[in-house]
């Protein structure tokens, strides 16, 4: 997939196939909501969603739209707006396969993929019911435990190699370099994933790698498969240093999405009205 083939949100949505292992960022770390809407509009199905390391409205909408088969996450919550109603309903109905995790395990498993490693060890977790329900996690012996210590078990997490990583960032340049600042987990996602698709607020005409200060927070184009400009691309969520979340929308959403019919109504209006942000 070459960057030049992806010109708009529909191209981007088309580049994420049904059944993809799709890594998405947390609601507070550049969620690609405009792209998510395009994905739902194209009726994507059977996603294996990897939330880095948690999700909120983005997972909620994809689940509500019937796009998700498997969700691997450390949490799904709408934060101060409350529980994510479609996620909760899907769990209760057994509609999605849960791979409950803990935040550093998702980070570590992505780092393993970014390093081309089959696994990464991680402390903690032992004795948690998470481990009991994750047959894909294994317990190994620390090979460096002193011989007289009676052993030192440690969890080994298999690498998570997403087919696609998807997020929204403030800025990219014409060469495809993307600024993510301190949000380093976005760089790990891009390193780990086979393809990385990005939406951005703005395209810079100057190369982001040219300024050494700026460059430290830039994902090089080498890892980027496609960049689409999408102003307010995180709406109704916020983007760091740019804009806050749309509180009124989120309150209305949570109230409406408590029922299947309410959610269907929200979704229909949302997909049908790209200008809803201006309501």
């Amino acid at each position, binding site marked *: 997939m070459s960057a030049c083939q992806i010109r708009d949100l529909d191209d981007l949505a088309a580049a994420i196939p049904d059944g993809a292992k799709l890594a998405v960022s947390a609601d507070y770390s550049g969620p690609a909501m405009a792209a998510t809407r395009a994905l739902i509009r194209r009726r994507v199905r059977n996603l294996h969603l990897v939330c880095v390391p*948690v999700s909120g409205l983005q997972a909620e909408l994809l689940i509500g739209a019937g796009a998700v088969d498997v969700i691997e996450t450390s949490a799904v919550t709408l934060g101060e707006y409350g529980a994510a109603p479609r996620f909760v309903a899907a769990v209760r109905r057994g509609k999605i396969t849960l791979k409950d995790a803990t935040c550093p395990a998702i980070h570590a498993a992505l780092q393993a993929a970014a390093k081309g490693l089959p696994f990464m060890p991680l402390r903690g977790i032992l004795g*948690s019911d998470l481990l009991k329900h994750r047959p894909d996690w294994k317990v190994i012996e620390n090979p460096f435990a002193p011989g007289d210590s009676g*052993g030192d078990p440690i969890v080994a997490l298999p690498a998570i190699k997403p087919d696609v990583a998807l997020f929204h960032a403030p800025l990219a340049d014409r060469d495809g370099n993307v600024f993510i600042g301190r949000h*380093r987990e976005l760089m790990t996602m891009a390193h780990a994933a086979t393809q990385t698709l990005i939406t951005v607020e703005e395209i810079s005409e100057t190369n982001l790698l040219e300024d050494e200060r700026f460059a430290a927070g830039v994902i090089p184009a080498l890892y980027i498969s496609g960049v689409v400009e999408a102003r307010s691309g995180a709406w109704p969520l916020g983007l760091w240093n740019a804009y806050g979340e749309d509180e009124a929308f989120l309150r209305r959403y949570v109230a409406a999405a408590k029922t299947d019919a309410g959610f269907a109504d929200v979704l229909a209006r949302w997909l049908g009205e790209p200008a809803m942000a201006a309501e």
Partner: protein
Amino acid sequence: MNATLCSEAVAPTRQELLIFTIAGLLAGCRHVAVGAASPIPGAGALLERARSNGTPRVSVLGSTRNNFFTNGGVELFDCAAQGRIDAFFLGGGQIDGSGNVNLVGTGSYPSTEVRWPGSFGSAYLYFLVPRVILFREEHTRRVLVERVDFISAPGTSEKGIYRPGGPHALLTNLALFDYDRERRRFRLRSVHPGHGIEEVLDNTGFAFDRPDTVPQTPLPDHETLALIRGRVRDEIGEVYPRFVETAFPSGV
């Protein structure tokens, strides 16, 4: 009432008492991290810093002014594993008498009756941070259960498991408990003013130890209360503007 609390001062609110109590649990810490959606723990840590000449260092996730991490979401966890975080806070939909916490849901997993968000970093930080303070305002038998339905993070581990961290205390709207790692049980330290031991017993689903006479949770003195209502209110207000509107008496 604490004698040093001047009678003309507005009495501390419930939240102010919790903030003050949390600050007391952080004495001697070099670095305290506070997770998302945690205004009272955050204010408690900032109070301890304000009254202790800048120690501990406080990292408040979600803050701009009080967040020093530059290596992405993994840094909090790496920092804890390096031994650079002395205290952290965990909540829990259920907390049991062994200190196990459940952030996943009730009933049979995976089709839980009630589903909560998920385990977040609990299954890791509970092992790595020496002083984990369990903080849950609601003190009922629904929350404080004999045995959690799902162990997001266990209160204790077998011998031989690498575990420098674990539960240190449990703070609710009614009382403060210490956690005894040897006995793997909570021990009631104090009951908040306005509440009694019977109320605590009635509302706690697990058995716990307690002294013969249970003291009242101390109240902040006038100076400390002023610090909470001044500097701490301003600092925590950066991250939680709506919290400060409701938690602190207006016009102070």
